[in-house]
């Protein structure tokens, strides 16, 4: 605000930080991601401490299906790439290109979610539920929190696409879009750790 005069009349290359509000938003969001890091770390710590407490239920080795996880990982990694491509289009002021990439991102995200829901249903069928043991609770808390983040991200990006189509790529919509893309990448980072520390480590023992 004080420095809004600074948001120069010439067209900046980075729309998301072109205005003072945009700068605040991006910085604020990075700080939020820092907080999210600690949040997930606590869930990871709890999971790792409790993952062998499966009681009579199936153990990590018996339960996890790596093929499914590999597919889910590929989907999410690709969506991270398409999300960054959408941001490049955004900074080129190419609304159509951006929306296309964002929609692809959404589709990949949805596919990931469907896989995860299928996986959960499968586990519940195997007798591995939220209430069956401490392992169950901590597993669903960690992976479920990640899933909830993906869900929220999808809803968020849909509303932002609507706004972008209505208002175009402006110094007001750009920071929102950029920040949602950061969020999406962060979800991917968390998934990298989930697939390493939950699934792969679960197989190694």
């Amino acid at each position, binding site marked *: 605000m004080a420095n809004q005069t*600074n948001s120069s009349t010439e067209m900046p*290359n980075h729309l998301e930080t072109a205005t003072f509000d945009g700068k605040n938003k991006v910085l604020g969001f990075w700080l939020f991601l820092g907080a999210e890091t600690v949040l997930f770390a*606590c869930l990871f710590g709890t999971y790792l401490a409790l993952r062998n407490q499966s009681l009579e239920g199936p153990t990590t080795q018996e339960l996890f299906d790596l093929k499914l996880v590999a597919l889910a990982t590929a989907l999410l*990694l690709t969506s991270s*790439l398409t999300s960054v*491509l959408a941001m490049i289009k955004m900074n080129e002021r190419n609304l159509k290109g951006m929306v296309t990439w964002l929609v692809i991102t959404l589709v990949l995200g949805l596919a990931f979610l469907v896989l995860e829901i299928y996986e959960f249903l499968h586990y519940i069928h195997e007798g591995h539920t939220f209430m069956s043991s401490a392992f169950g609770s901590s597993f669903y808390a960690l992976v479920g929190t990640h899933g909830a983040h993906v869900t929220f991200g999808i809803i968020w990006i849909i509303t932002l696409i609507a706004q972008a189509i209505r208002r175009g790529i402006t110094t007001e919509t750009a920071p929102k879009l950029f920040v949602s893309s950061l969020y999406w990448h962060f979800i991917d980072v968390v998934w990298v*750790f989930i697939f390493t520390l939950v699934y792969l480590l679960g197989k*190694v023992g």
Partner: protein
Amino acid sequence: MAKENNQAISRKPESAVKHILSFVLMIAFTAAAFYIVVSDVVPSGWVIPLLLVFAAIQVFLQLFTFMHLDQKGTAFYTFFMIAGIFIAVISAVGILLM
């Protein structure tokens, strides 16, 4: 403030090449991680450290290419992210070693 603004303006438009390269690397590391778990190429004591290293590299790639921390004017983002990761690691290890 004005100085940072000028930096924002002087940035060059990004190319997609860097990101695609980074993506290929990530896929490669993911595949490698899967491979060392399902096969026996790596002695068992090395699997977990190696997995952690692969994960760390991927995080680095995500942060510094996809999330643009390689650009100028991101010192605060990097600082707070590193602080967050540091505290996160201490906390997780603390809980784990209870």
